[in-house]
């Protein structure tokens, strides 16, 4: 496993090369009470994810992958088991501390983009910084930087309704990046996009990963999973397979073979 540290990186990962994994999960279980029946969404999941990794999580719906993502993203708590994020036991934290972790260490990208309507790309990108101490000037500068990183520097003042699906998802990625998180959690980020735009988003992910950002991506499209370095397959609340992708596809190369579509 290799980690590239470019000179221009904005996401230098301090833990690179150190022995502490970014995510360490041991025997994670999650049970829901759904009416009379108890649903076992996760039945003992253990996994380590090192800084700089790019993981694709696959699985049918109901396999537990979404529950796993929600716990990784500190939006949900496990019924039992340990979840260490940079060595910190997340299960022991309060709601307020979890909100802080989501704000500082995790960036989310959703299938439905989840941008605020009638709010410019710039302001959407600024959103996470509203919940931590930053000055107005600093907020705007960093949001513009993040938009430039995803190639939307010239669309800062556009509203979501004036942007294509791919552009909206790139704004969402910029929003996820703006607080310089330790990892990016993407839940079916290409689910609402056509194939070329999907690959364009993967190109951005690969670029960010090359700069050192850890990415965990949930998808049910095997093609998309091929852009990652590692593939974990969930089934019935357990990890069925955990493989290294031998030769990951390179998005920028794939794009050259695809017909160009006008936005």
């Amino acid at each position, binding site marked *: 496993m290799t980690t590239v540290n470019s000179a221009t990186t904005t996401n230098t990962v301090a833990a690179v090369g150190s022995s502490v994994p970014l995510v360490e999960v041991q025997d994670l279980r999650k049970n829901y009470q759904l009416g009379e029946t108890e649903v076992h969404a996760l039945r003992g999941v253990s996994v380590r994810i090192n800084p700089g990794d790019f993981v694709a999580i696959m699985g049918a719906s109901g396999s537990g992958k979404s529950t796993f993502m*929600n716990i990784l993203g500190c939006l949900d708590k496990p019924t039992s088991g340990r979840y260490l994020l940079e060595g910190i036991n997340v299960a022991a934290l309060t*709601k307020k501390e979890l909100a802080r972790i*989501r*704000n500082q260490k995790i960036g989310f990208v959703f299938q439905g983009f989840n941008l605020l309507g009638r709010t410019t790309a710039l302001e959407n990108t600024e*959103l*996470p910084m509203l919940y931590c101490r930053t000055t107005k000037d600093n907020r705007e500068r960093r949001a513009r930087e993040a938009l430039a990183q995803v190639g939307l520097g010239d669309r800062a003042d556009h509203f979501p309704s004036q942007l294509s699906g791919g552009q909206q998802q790139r704004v969402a990625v910029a929003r996820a990046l703006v607080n310089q998180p330790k990892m990016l959690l993407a839940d079916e980020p290409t689910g609402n996009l056509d194939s070329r735009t999907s690959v364009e988003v993967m190109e951005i992910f690969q670029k960010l990963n090359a700069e050192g950002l850890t990415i965990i991506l949930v998808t049910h499209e095997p093609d998309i999973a091929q852009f990652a370095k590692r593939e974990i397959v969930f089934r019935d609340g357990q990890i069925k397979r955990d493989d290294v992708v031998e030769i990951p596809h390179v998005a920028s190369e794939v794009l050259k073979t695809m017909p160009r579509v006008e936005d």
Partner: protein
Amino acid sequence: MDFSSAFLLALRALGRNKMRSSLTMLGLIIGVGAVIAVIGIGEGAATKAQEQLAALGSNMLFVGSGSVNRYGLHVGSFQTKTLVLADARAIVRECPSVSAAAPGTGTGQQVVYGNENWATQVTGTEPQYFEVRNWPFASGTSFSGDDVTQASTVAVLGDTVRKYLFGSSNPIGETIRIGTLPFKVVGVLTPKGTSPGSGQDQDDVIIAPLTTVQKKLLGQEWLRWIMVSAVSRQASYVAQQQIESLLRDRHKIRSADPDDFVVRNMADMADAAAEQGTIMTVLLTIVASIALLVGGIGIMNIMLVSVTERTREIGVRMAVGATEEDVRLQFLIEALVLGLIGGTIGIIFGVTSSLAVSQGLGWPIRIPAYAIAVATIFAMAIALFFGFYPARRASQLNPIEALRYE
């Protein structure tokens, strides 16, 4: 999130739905406006009533000849012939709480000057009447005690009578005709306005010596009334008792029989007027408070709709690091901004409508600073109270479900 960016955020959120925001505020605008207008008009009316009663003299008592039951027949007020000049003298002499008393009678008469004529009330009294009623002269003087003894045909005009008979010319020294008799005008009174009790024009009057009216216009020896002034306002109740027992004694009324006279106390009337004003203000305040309450419920209603509509937005905010407090604060401030803007417009609306009422109906208006403070605080409190539940509901949302909400 700091307060100022939360405030800006709220303004933008409300600005996105201007129509809905303004309709939501309408309830508060009407409520606050009503509170301001009610207090303004109420305070103004109370002030005016106080002024009118003070002009009347709050230490004044009115003794009138009463009704009497003769052979089972009730004869109306001012009909008994038992109240006489000697009673007026006795009241001043024997009641220690009384400082002065002016006996009087009156008759409706047609008055003529040149081509002008006017029907008015002619009051016959003594010169102390002007002091008892605290009624200054605009020009000329009162008739004298000698005029009363000699039953001279001299007259003092009320302002309304002067206006109708003389217009802008000077009436002093002119001769007018009352009924069939010529009277010389010696003085004109300052305007006193309408009576707070009956609403009658107090300036529509001619005042002449008691004896002149009794003998030359009425042909009656008895009095219709005696105006009494007590030594102080507090003393007026004691004075009333003293007068009542004195007159019963003088009129030889047996203890079982009713009075053949009436005594009215202006202090009582002042209290009654004040009480009426208070009842009115309380009633209107209740109505205004209900309007405010309805406004508050409107805010809650719209905030709940807004929270439901923005479930995904709340989910996104929580995912990127908003705490429960951040979300609650955001919606509370939105409610507060609604209250603040609605309250401010309501104050403007209330002040303007009060002024319109005062212009249109000629009512006095007094909007005290406390009314504006009370209305503002009330509007904010209502907004906070009714905004709290929706805000709490927003903050309790589960981020996972909120993100999936369609």
